[in-house]
């Protein structure tokens, strides 16, 4: 069997990006729903959405750094 070549860390980063990808999708989808139901609260919802995205994204960022470290 031919040996697999390339960086294993790349696969690790790909795996690390799955969870945050799903999470950000859920956050953004629910934020759009909230804005559609209550347009007057859109400003507050948008701020909270960005915060949620930022915190969720941290997991993918850790994967990104591990990709550089290895």
């Amino acid at each position, binding site marked *: 069997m031919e040996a697999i070549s390339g960086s294993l860390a790349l696969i690790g980063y790909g795996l690390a990006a799955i969870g945050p990808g799903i999470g950000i999708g859920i956050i953004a989808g629910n934020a759009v729903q909230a804005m559609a139901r209550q347009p007057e609260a859109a400003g507050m919802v948008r701020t909270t959405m*960005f915060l949620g995205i930022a915190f969720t994204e941290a997991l993918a960022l850790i994967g990104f750094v591990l990709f550089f470290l290895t």
Partner: protein
Amino acid sequence: MEQLILASEECDLVENSVCAPADVAELFEFRTPIFEILGFPITRTVSVIFLVAVVVVGLLFFGLRKKAVQPGKFQTAMEGLIGFIRDEVAVGIIGPDGIRYFPYLLSLFLFILVANAFEVMPFINFPTTSRMAIPLFLALLTYVIFIAAGLKRQGFRYIGDILWPPGVPVALKPLVGIIEFFSIFFVRPFSLAVRLFANLVAGHVMLSILLVTGLVSFLTIGEIGLIKSAFGIAWWLLGLAIYMFEVIVILLQAYIFTLLSAVYIETSLHPQH
């Protein structure tokens, strides 16, 4: 610009399908100094940082110099930007006492915005925030400020307050303490810095590789043949689409960095009861 020339000389589209440097670090590290001041070598990175500072000061100076009752276009834009940071971020997130942190948040926002904007600026094409030193320094500044704000407002009770939010059962205290300690004192500054850094690195790599590939395949149309050259032009068009996307990323990252700094300061000033 010298990168473009360098890349197009190394690039061999006869064998490869895109122009990528052998090592991606070549796109970010400029070791040869451009000139020297008092014995200190000034590289391209450092000169771009100084340019960013000059541009930020110039924007503020020329935007707010006249204080006209009927403001011109430029003054209106600057006032809108500053008013947005003051009302939505400083006062909106932190509360009425957030006006004390408004100068810091505004300079943070403008510096990151201009430094990021140099990514898509023709002839400069280099975001200084894609070198880890800059975002890390800015994140550590926020780190020091939010811890100092908490200590000043609440004394040493602050440390206990953030480690154990009120209402935590006694049995869970060790576990919650460890998680909160790690999340506040390590993950917060780290993720703040890496988020900015990672977005700009990814953008700079994508833009350089795609646009240079398109340019080189257009220039060497005789050597590589018409079909491969057409693929190169397709890469170039994709690069232009990503260029527009990067303009959004630039604004969003500057906003998110400022917003999160404000949120961290807010959690230090007003603990949950």
